């Protein structure tokens, strides 16, 4: 049974930030509610106040600003899938959001909620980390911008202060010669939390079968979504074939630190990190 909290319903962002400035310690914001309502229902959290963000239309926009895409915190996974802007400018993020939950969960769940929940298995996060996206945090006193990678501290832990809201996410638009791939392993195709996942972003090199830049993010394979910098370096600026790709992707096991839980063992997750990474790069280099 959900506890009896007080509800605040700001109409604008400044009003919301004013409320958080005053009562931030007690307030739990709610966006789509798909994570929060589950936690309220089973009593894992018992806030004294809940702030309904649903009237803050200014946080629902997707905008092109120069070479960057700005996605408001309240943009839903469905909006990411359906917006012509994200489809052309952020295809890797589209691939991630497409694998979230079910249609209903994607219609309700937001990017800001996925980030704030900071699950190591959150499906929009690997794409954001691989794209070197930034998160804008707003408080009454002003705004600060952090790389998404630094924003995530541990399972369920972020750099967000109680008086701050996630305002938006900024990522660089896709350019000619760039490719991405998101590869999720779940127990089934829908309504499945990632057992392991990997997002890969590359810039193709001038010579055939080379990559001039590589970014890799592993999900559900460490306490937070994690960059694979060793593998990235090993893949950059060298001619790749099936054999060398197979060799280099083995390095992935050194980059991840998975746990054993009800969904899979640590050893299985390590093996899957390598397999998912190999598949993704194979797809990018030789199949697309």
């Amino acid at each position: 049974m959900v506890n009896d909290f007080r509800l605040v319903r700001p109409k604008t962002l400044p009003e919301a930030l004013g409320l958080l400035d005053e009562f931030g310690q007690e307030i739990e914001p709610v966006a789509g509610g798909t994570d929060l309502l589950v936690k309220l229902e089973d009593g894992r959290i018992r806030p004294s106040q809940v702030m309904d963000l649903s009237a803050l239309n200014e946080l629902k926009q997707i905008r092109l600003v120069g070479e960057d895409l700005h996605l408001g915190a309240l943009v839903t996974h469905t909006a990411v899938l359906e917006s012509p802007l994200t489809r052309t400018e952020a295809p890797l993020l589209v691939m991630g959001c497409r694998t979230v939950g079910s249609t209903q969960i994607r219609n309700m769940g937001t990017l800001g909620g996925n980030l704030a929940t900071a699950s190591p298995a959150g499906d929009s996060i690997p794409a954001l980390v691989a794209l070197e996206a930034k998160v804008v945090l707003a408080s009454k006193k002003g705004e600060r911008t952090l790389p998404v990678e630094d924003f995530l501290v541990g399972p369920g832990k972020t750099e967000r202060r109680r008086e701050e809201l996630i305002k938006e996410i900024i990522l660089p638009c896709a350019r000619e010669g760039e490719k991405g791939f998101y590869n999720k392993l779940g127990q089934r195709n829908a309504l499945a939390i990632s057992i392991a996942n990997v997002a890969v972003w590359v810039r193709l090199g001038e010579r055939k079968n080379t990559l001039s830049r590589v970014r890799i993010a592993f999900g559900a394979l460490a306490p937070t979504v994690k960059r694979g910098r060793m593998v990235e370096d090993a893949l950059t600026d060298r001619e790749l074939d099936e054999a060398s790709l197979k060799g280099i992707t083995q390095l992935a096991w050194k980059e991840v630190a998975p746990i054993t839980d009800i969904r899979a063992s640590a050893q299985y997750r390590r093996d899957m990190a390598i397999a998912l990474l190999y598949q993704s790069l194979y797809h990018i280099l030789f199949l697309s």
Partner: protein
Amino acid sequence: MNLVEVEFTLNGERQKVIVPPRTTLLEVIREHLGLTGTKKGCGKGECGACTVLLDGEAVLACLTLISQAEGHAVTTIEGLAKGEQLDPLQEAFIEEGAIQCGYCTPGMILSAKALLRKNPSPTQEEIKTAIAGNLCRCTGYVKIIKAVQKAGRRSAEVAAHD
């Protein structure tokens, strides 16, 4: 008393409710407004029995706080038929035998309704994606998919005649 006032439309009719803020849209629909077509299965987002339309999009009433419905249009299974005339989806579900115990049916039909609104002639894969969040323990889904395809075709024919 700690209460919130929320106004929204339910199946085209304006509603105003005054309830404790922790109340979900599902509780309001079933317990306060007495429309029991919308079902509660799991209460945590996993079964889809509580699916309703919010401004035409399928959402889960069990994970929606009532305040989040403020100013929106909610449609439940009771809102689909026009008088005695069933919705093409309801007719197709009956004709195809896509209903057994019926517990999943309201949610299933509303997910399909949201799909057909955006995409009147969906492929089998598109239908599967649209209803992946609606569990059915009886039918095995094949007849449900057939019914959705049939309803899509029929709506297209009706639209062509209008």
